C-alpha cells in the first residue's frame, strides 16, 4: 500500500513538474499578452495541484497535509484575482489582444452565422466596452 502511494506521488510530482514546464514554455512562446496570461494560470492550477497533491500523499493525514491544502487554496484564490486585475489593467492601458487578421478568418467563417465581420477597432452599440461608465471621453467609433 505504501509502495502504491509512493508510486502515485512520484507520478503526480513528475506530472506537476512537466505541467510547470509546459506553462513556462507557454508564457515564453505565446504571442501577445493575454494568451501568455492564459498559459501562466496553467502553472497555478495544474502544476500546483499535482505537486501539492503528490506531496500530500507522502505525508498522510497530518497538519502538513492541511498546510499543503491551504497553500493550494490560497494560490487558487490569489492568482485568480491577480490575473483578473492584471487583465483589467492591461485592457485599460491599451494592450490589445493579439488577433488573427480578419481577412484570413473570413475565408473560413460564415457571415450568416456570425454577422458582418468588423475590424476590432470599430465599436458598436451593445458591445462590451472595458471603460463603460468610467471615462468621460467618448470612445472613438
Amino acid at each position, binding site marked *: 500500500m505504501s509502495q502504491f502511494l*509512493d508510486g502515485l*506521488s*512520484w507520478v503526480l*510530482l*513528475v506530472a*506537476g*513538474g*512537466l505541467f*510547470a*514546464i509546459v*506553462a*513556462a*514554455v507557454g*508564457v*515564453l512562446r505565446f504571442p501577445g*499578452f493575454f494568451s*501568455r*496570461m492564459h498559459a*501562466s494560470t496553467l*502553472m*497555478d492550477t495544474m*502544476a*500546483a495541484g499535482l*505537486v*501539492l497533491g*503528490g*506531496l500530500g500523499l*507522502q*505525508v498522510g493525514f497530518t497538519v*502538513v497535509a492541511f*498546510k*499543503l491544502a*491551504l*497553500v493550494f487554496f*490560497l*494560490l487558487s484564490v*490569489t*492568482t485568480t*484575482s*491577480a490575473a483578473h*486585475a*492584471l487583465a483589467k*489593467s*492591461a485592457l*485599460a*492601458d491599451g*494592450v490589445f489582444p493579439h488577433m488573427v487578421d480578419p481577412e484570413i478568418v473570413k475565408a473560413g467563417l460564415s457571415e450568416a452565422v456570425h454577422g458582418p465581420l468588423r475590424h476590432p477597432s470599430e465599436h458598436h452599440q451593445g458591445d462590451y466596452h472595458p471603460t463603460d461608465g468610467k471615462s468621460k471621453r467618448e470612445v472613438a467609433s
Partner: protein
Amino acid sequence: MYATAALLLLVAMAITLIRALKGPSVFDRILAVNTFGTATVLMISVVGFMDHRPDLVDIALIYALISFTSTIAALRFVEIDHARRAQEAAEAQGDS
C-alpha cells in the same frame, strides 16, 4: 523522486525568467514575476520534503500570500503611472 520534480520546476523557473527579461511590456514582466513566484512556492515545498523538513511549507504559504501583495502593488503603480503620464500629456498640450 523529489529531486526530479525539483529539477523540472527549476527548468520551468529558468524559462519563465527569459520572459521576465524579454517581456516587451510592463504587464509581461508582472506576469512573469507572478508565475516565477508560484513556481518558487512549489519548489520550496518540494525541497522542504526532500530535506526531511516539512515545516518549510510555512515559507511556501507566506510566499503564496505575499506575491499577491506585490502583484497588486505593481498594478497600482501602473495605474498611477498611467494617470501621471496622461496628466503630463494634458499639461504639455495645455502649455503648447
